[in-house]
């Protein structure tokens, strides 16, 4: 009897959620009302569903079925979503990367050959490699340098938050900020971008930072370095604090210079952190999309992998090419992630 009540309640909830969905989607619903209803339904709905699922199972006759169903209520939704949103789509992407643009005819390795042969995509790979080397190198080095410097000043926390701040804002926001830095006006007109103002003040000609093919990629890469350095600095800073000061003190007592202490003692002790930081930055760089999308949309030879994939999806409507690029991205990410996760485990077990 109680079981029937639970089931009825569950059904009612589902109907209510379904109704709220139609209500929110309807054209004539005012936006604000729709938004608030959606917000409520989304937040409460998930809790209600768990509560009801548990309620139904709790009122089943005690026994093996009930015992078997209990974990299903707890992990079932997670597994279902993971399957629907990651496992199946990822496998499907691999599958359709062997088919033509509409996924009708099998084309074998055609899409991958296109990716490695087309001159456009070669530029994409070249750019990704440049991003990878420069962003990783500079943000790790700068992050470490700043962490070491900041460790010796009085208002450490305040100084750190200046460097860390860019990490809080979106890539889109950061792109607008830097578009303003790179703003360009023809000779003779007032330069409102900081960079060109400096160039002109020093007697140079204003530069089109985002258009000039020899510099624009570096201009975009600088944005990512600006954002990632804070992350590197925070991690290094925490690691530096965990090095017992007796060790470095002992080295100094023995007559080691500051530089020697750093390279012989501190740096080797930071090795694990270094791997963690570098791999994390590499993965972030491989997936970079927003900066290029907002700044140049891939024009003037600035395209990167994720942007090319997006263009194949929405501009060229070639799902074969797009999914081949996604697979290439996956293959590039896997080894880095494996190192990252393995390193993470090692560090955890050592603690």
């Amino acid at each position, binding site marked *: 009897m109680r079981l029937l009540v639970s089931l009825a309640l569950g059904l009612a909830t589902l109907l209510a959620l379904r109704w709220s969905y139609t209500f929110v989607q309807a054209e004539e619903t005012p936006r604000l009302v729709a938004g608030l209803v959606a917000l409520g339904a989304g937040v409460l709905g998930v809790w209600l569903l768990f509560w009801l699922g548990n309620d139904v199972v709790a009122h089943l006759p005690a026994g093996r079925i009930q015992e078997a169903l209990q974990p299903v209520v707890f992990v079932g939704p997670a597994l279902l979503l*993971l399957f629907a949103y990651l496992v199946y789509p990822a496998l499907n992407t691999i599958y359709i990367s062997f088919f033509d643009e509409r996924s009708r005819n099998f084309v074998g390795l055609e899409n991958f050959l296109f990716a490695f042969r087309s001159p456009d995509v070669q530029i994409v790979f070249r750019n990704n490699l440049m991003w990878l080397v420069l962003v990783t190198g500079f943000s790790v080095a700068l992050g470490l340098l700043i962490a070491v410097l900041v460790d010796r000043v009085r208002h450490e926390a305040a100084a750190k938050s200046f460097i860390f701040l860019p990490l809080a804002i979106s890539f889109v*926001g950061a792109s607008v900020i830097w578009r303003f830095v790179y703003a360009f006006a023809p000779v003779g007109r007032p330069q409102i971008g900081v960079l060109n103002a400096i160039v002109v003040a020093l007697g140079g000609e204003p530069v089109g930072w985002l258009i000039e093919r020899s510099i624009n990629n570096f201009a975009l890469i600088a944005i990512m370095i600006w954002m990632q350095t804070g992350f590197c600095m925070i991690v290094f800073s925490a690691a530096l604090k965990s090095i017992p000061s007796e060790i470095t003190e002992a080295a100094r007592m023995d007559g080691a210079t500051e530089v020697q202490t750093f390279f012989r003692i501190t740096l080797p002790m930071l090795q694990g952190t270094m791997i963690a930081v570098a791999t994390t930055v590499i993965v972030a760089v491989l997936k970079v999309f927003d900066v290029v999308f907002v700044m140049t949309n891939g024009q003037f030879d600035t395209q990167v992998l994720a942007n090319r994939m997006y263009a194949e999806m929405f501009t060229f409507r070639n799902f074969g090419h797009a999914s081949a690029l996604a697979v290439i991205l996956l293959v590039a*990410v896997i080894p880095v992630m494996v190192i990252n996760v393995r390193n993470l485990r090692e560090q955890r077990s050592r603690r």
Partner: protein
Amino acid sequence: MSAAPYQTSLVRRKFERVVVPLAVIFICFLWTLPTAGVLISSFRESTAIRTSGWWTVFAHPFEFTQWTLQNYREVILADGMGSAFLNSVIVTIPATVIPITIAAFAAYAFAWMDFRGRELLFAIVVGLLIVPLHMALIPLLRVYTRLDLTGSYLGIWLAHTGFGLPLAIYLLYNYIVQLPQDLLESAFIDGASHFTAFTRLVLPLSVPAIASFSIFQFLWVWNDLLVALVFLGSGNESSVITSRLTELVGSKGQDWHLLTAGAFVSMVVPLVVFFSLQRYFVRGILAGSVKG
């Protein structure tokens, strides 16, 4: 003999007292300069922005007639940043609450329930950390189009949930599994069900882990552009703040009075989170850095 070490330490101390702080101040200045320029410009008249650099305001900073809120009024009301802001709120809050709820239940089950295939399933969840969300976009977009889910809030919540789950489960599991075993066992002896043990004991005890991940996921969704573009599209009334700002860059790329104000409208929430919850924020960023 004894003079040399004394002198080097003097030099070193001088270096530490003068050069290092100066270097730090210089770096902080350099790092803040781009943001400061945009913040200052967002309060200047559009013609002033176009004709003189933002740094010229420092010549006469207290001439209050040069400051204006008109840019914000225009970008929020006329250029749709206001409604995009609302959309971002509606997208972001459930896209944070839903994955955390689902992940917490799953993490509890992986940590404290006994069922067949537990280890294997958990290994799969950890393995999925590696998959970049780019791998999922094309098939999902096709399914969404067929089910008419594109442009709906439900669709994007579930997408963010799916992409956020592996990390959420992994982090919450690491936390929940190390809660004291006796505590839960005594609860079960007192007749508590798994559901009660979870809601009354495990959830309250996991607040630090949940808070860190919530902040990470919240900022991730708020700042996301790619997922929003694919599943909500742009140029319609359901676009979120990042895609609206991107559209503004495309259509009004030289209207700096709008772009600067718009950028700040989009950054206000992350900045408030950053300044008010800095400790959790740092923890969240560190924990979430491996997200796919």
